[in-house]
């Protein structure tokens, strides 16, 4: 694999036009990845989902070279009609369109980054892989006191041109003081057996608000890793919603650093799995300052021989007094082959805190099914009703009414 990586990297560099500085950074990132390789179950974070093994089993030999010079056509049919929105269209890891037609153009600054955040996190070599092979990184800066009028929908599309390929993509958001943005990240996969590695960085200044809704619905055989890193200053709020159902394997990782007081982070997620899927959500909320708040609610419905994993960690620094942290994960196992693994973790160094977590897993409540059946529903409908009620709980946490309605329709819960 090492030789393949090196030759693909050289090919990638020679067909793109990066500055010397960028090439140097990319080389460093590649070296870091070469040193560590794909994460395996030997690492604590990957204990329940050995991505190295999963890639080998499902894809085998990976192509790391991804040609960003290929022209891709945008099919307008895929756009959401129900709501007016701004668009970013990404096809096979390449940004094809950025349109902010509903916003004031002087309030948004679009640039590409020459310098990327060199994540020297040894525990997560996938970030290094992303840094070394991703195309130019777009940066979206929302200026002071500006609130997005319409949501931004990021269409992340893959088409049949790629297969057995590693697609790396990175996007940056800077929210200046008192600004706000609503993002829907929609996956639309028409490709098979690729390894898609996404990295989103969000920097929230004082009083900024980020609402980020990630939807993975369309059934596909791709393997995905999606990492969102959110840093928050004073009074800022972040809300992340994850609906994960379509891909063969996906690990959604959300890492929040609450650096300013009165900042808060909400992460809610749904796993709706069937067949042979294996999905994981890992949340990392770091309370680094006084009076910060975090809340996580993750619910899984697991059918057939699929597997759901939730790893959640709340870290409270000794400075972060008066922290309020809450975490709940629940799972319903519908089939004997289904599996649920959880690791809700608390690491606390401050005494004046309120932190708790809960985790429950089991089958659907027989009594509830019986009750509904005694009211005239057949067993199948009764079960479906209970499941949608179970999941609706999470969807109801979405604070934006318009988007909530849209997502409810999209997911098929009402």
């Amino acid at each position: 694999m090492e030789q393949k990586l090196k030759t693909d990297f050289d090919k990638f560099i020679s067909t793109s036009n990066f500055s010397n500085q960028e090439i140097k950074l990319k080389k460093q990132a590649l070296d870091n990845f070469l040193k560590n390789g794909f994460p395996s179950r030997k690492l604590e974070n990957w204990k329940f989902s050995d991505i190295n093994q999963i890639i080998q089993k499902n894809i085998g030999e990976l192509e790391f070279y991804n040609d960003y010079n290929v022209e891709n056509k945008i099919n307008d049919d895929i756009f959401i009609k129900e709501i007016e929105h701004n668009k970013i269209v990404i096809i096979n890891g390449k940004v094809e369109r950025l349109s902010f037609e509903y916003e004031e153009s002087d309030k948004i600054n679009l640039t590409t980054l020459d310098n990327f955040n060199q994540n020297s996190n040894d525990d997560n070599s996938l970030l290094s892989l992303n840094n070394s092979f991703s195309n130019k990184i777009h940066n979206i800066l929302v200026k002071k006191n500006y609130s997005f009028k319409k949501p931004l929908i990021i269409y992340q599309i893959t088409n049949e041109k790629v297969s057995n390929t590693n697609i790396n993509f990175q996007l940056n958001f800077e929210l200046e003081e008192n600004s706000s943005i609503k993002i829907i990240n929609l996956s639309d996969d028409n490709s098979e057996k690729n390894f898609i590695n996404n990295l989103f960085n969000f920097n929230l200044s004082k009083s900024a608000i980020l609402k980020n809704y990630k939807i993975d619905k369309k059934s596909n055989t791709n393997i995905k890793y999606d990492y969102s890193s959110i840093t928050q200053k004073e009074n800022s709020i972040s809300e992340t919603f994850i609906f994960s159902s379509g891909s063969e394997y996906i690990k959604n990782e959300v890492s929040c650093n609450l650096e300013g007081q009165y900042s808060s982070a909400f992460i809610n997620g749904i796993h709706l799995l069937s067949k042979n899927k294996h999905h994981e959500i890992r949340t990392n909320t770091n309370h680094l300052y006084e009076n910060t708040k975090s809340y996580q609610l993750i619910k899984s419905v697991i059918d057939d021989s699929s597997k759901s994993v939730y790893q959640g960690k709340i870290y409270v620094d000794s400075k972060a007094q008066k922290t309020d942290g809450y975490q709940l994960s629940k799972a319903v196992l519908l089939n004997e082959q289904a599996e649920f693994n959880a690791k809700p973790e608390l690491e606390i160094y401050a005494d004046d805190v309120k932190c708790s977590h809960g985790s429950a897993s089991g089958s659907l409540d027989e009594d509830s099914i019986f009750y509904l059946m005694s009211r005239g529903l057949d067993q199948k409908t009764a079960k479906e009703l209970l499941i949608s009620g179970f999941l609706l709980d999470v969807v109801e946490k979405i604070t934006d009414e318009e988007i909530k309605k849209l997502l409810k329709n999209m997911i098929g819960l009402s």
Partner: protein
Amino acid sequence: MRDKQIENLKDYKYGFSTDIESFKAPKGLNEEVIRFISNIKKEPDWLLQWRLKAFERLKVLKEPDWQKPKYPKIDYQDLYYYSAPKSFKEKPKNLEDLDPKLLETYKKLGIPLQEQKRLNGIAVDAVFDSVSVATTFKDTLTEKGIIFCSISEAIQKYPDLVRKYLGSVIPITDHFFATLNSAVFTDGSFVYIPPNVKCPMELSTYFRINASDTGQFERTLIIADKGSYVSYLEGCTAPMRDENQLHAANVELIALEDAEIKYSTVQNWYPGDKDGKGGIYNFVTKRGLCKGKNSKISWTQVETGSAITWKYPSCILKGDNSIGEFYSIAITNNHQKADTGTKMIHLGKNTKSKIISKGISAGKSDMTYRGLVDISKNASNSTNYTQCDSLLMGNKCGAHTVPYIKNKNSNSNIAHEATTSKISEDQLHYCQQRGLNQEEAVGLIVNGFCKEVLQQLPMEFAVEAQKLVGISLEGSVG
């Protein structure tokens, strides 16, 4: 001078050591030493081979390093693996033959070896360093057919039982410290309860580490045959020492059909001084196997001592309808560190487990609950309930919860809850208003916090444990 001595003793009530000349094996860990231990204990050849096999395995094993409390590297070649009080080369026949100095030591510890034994109705198998000193109350137990003796004695007298069960729960191929124990274990307790016998008294062993630089490698084996019941108590105190002392014991419990074993521990070893110097490393492997149907194993522990406590008393619920329980109080103060919890492995149908863990950290200490609940595919209708609560005192200490939950069976339910909080100002205020000083008030509130676990302890222990909870937190408030 005398004042200074008293000053030193004040910190640790049980901090003294007796001047009995120790009889030691040469320092270091090698085949010679293992042969020496085996030889001096007149062990049969199969056991020597078993030990050597463990030693072979040990050579390729690495010390685990995933735990939260880190410690300086232990030089295993710089330890003594066998030490026995010299005057014990010939085993004494009765209590009167004992070294009076030794008896005095036990008296200071409050161990009911003589008069108290009758009053308390406890049979004591006291372990002084590595050789069993005296076993009391034998007659009452013999009448019922109960075997309660040192493991060395059991190896001589009941080799078939020992051979059948030794290493059946903790195999020699287990993790580093368990394998180390298998290679060099010196002594420990052996209990066998015959079918349908309810052990009439609480069996108790007090461990005591004495000689400086001597790691203690105890091996305890408890077998409850069909339909039997036994409650076993283990309590520990150790003299004050500067160097860190390693304790890597193995405890194996086997419950056959309809049998029940209740294992309670109060651990109060030397935790090191206020600056974190010295103290015991308590790296113990405790594992129970619910082998037969309807069997039950219950662990209760009160962990207040040791510089580092690192143990996970576990239950393997193999028999259908078997039950595993774990009740724990862990208190860390000053520079103490604890990484403790349990593993509940559900293999049989209709198995149940319950975990109640209370962690209290004060001073500059660090406490971690780490637990595993694993319900396998075939364990239908199994349930687990876990509750772990932590209490923090001050902002220099840490409390962590790391539960691993694996559910592979759709008919089984797992529920897990954890909270972290501090003592509420209101509660403190209320108690102080009623005339308690701050320390008493904290003691009272903490005892209330731990009550669910304290209730599980046998009477004799509950009182001692309650006091211990108070003592351990002295000086942590204010």
